[in-house]
């Protein structure tokens, strides 16, 4: 369990950097990029959550041995 928490924290850290960089890439203005960061991060995390759910579902059904 502790291991899972550490991995989630690492994922959270790297997600924040990925989202910040993509915000900088999309927005020319620094202010606009920083302002859009929370919304972008939420979208990214929710998207990753959905993908994880799908992968777990596939693992438990189609790919289960």
């Amino acid at each position: 369990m502790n291991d899972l928490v550490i991995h989630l924290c690492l994922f959270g850290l790297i997600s924040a950097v990925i989202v910040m960089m993509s915000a900088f890439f999309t927005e020319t203005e620094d202010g606009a990029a920083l302002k859009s960061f929370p919304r972008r991060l939420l979208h990214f995390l929710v998207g990753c959550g959905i993908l994880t759910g799908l992968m777990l579902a596939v693992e438990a059904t189609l790919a289960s041995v």
Partner: protein
Amino acid sequence: MAILTKTPKSTRPAGEPTVAVLLTWFMPGAGHLYLGRTRFALVAFVVVQGIYLLGLKLSGGMGFEFLQEELRGAFAPALAPEAGNLGALLYHLKNYGYGMPYPREFPSTVALGSMLTAASGMFNVALMCHAHFAARLPRGESRGFGSPAFAVLLTWLVPGLGHLFQGRRLRAVLVFCMIVGLVTFGTILAEGLNLSRERHYYYWGGQFMAGLPALLPELFGGGKAVSSHIPYGEAGLVIASVAGLLNIQTMLDVYGFGERQEFGGGAAADESKAGASAQETGA
């Protein structure tokens, strides 16, 4: 009475940007030769190919022998940073390839040598940016260090430095903290496991894009033997590699900003057009 007229300066672009980029990709300097910049082309060719040749010498041409047997496909080196200098990469593959069919000892300078061949690829990418920018400028004009290609090179060497060069201080600080911080954090987490091209060929390629913050620790303390289990070694490896890949995005940001400053376009141009049409409507 004679009328003195001043010949207007040509505003025609120096050449086709795509052609200049592709020529440079195949042969450093060829794009500039096409654009009529012979002296620059010669210097660029000598420097970029010289770095690759020096790297080949130091590594004994064994750089691609880091790849494990099962990964040695025809296109496997295409994912290496050397792919930025296609002509030299093809020369390397043709003359050295994956080496002999029996194991050989790597020379003691193999790490530095393969770092130089990879750096030559990145220098040629900056040269391709320069050729693209120079092709869009009116014939006979140049911007010297004002070209966004220089900012791209600075961004590769130290993430954030290109933004600083362009006067975007806040972005420079944030980019530096995030990318250099991530590389450092990944390296600490992996206990230096990531600092070896021989051990992690493709992850190293990603991490290499973060420039000096990844390369200097490798030069001075990389390639250490692993003597015990590293609990988050693989996580650290991925984190350092992702940081390097994100720096590619910042290089694109820097180049795009530089081009927009010179030629307009994008959001800035749209805003100015909207402002002008609003003024016309008001009038």
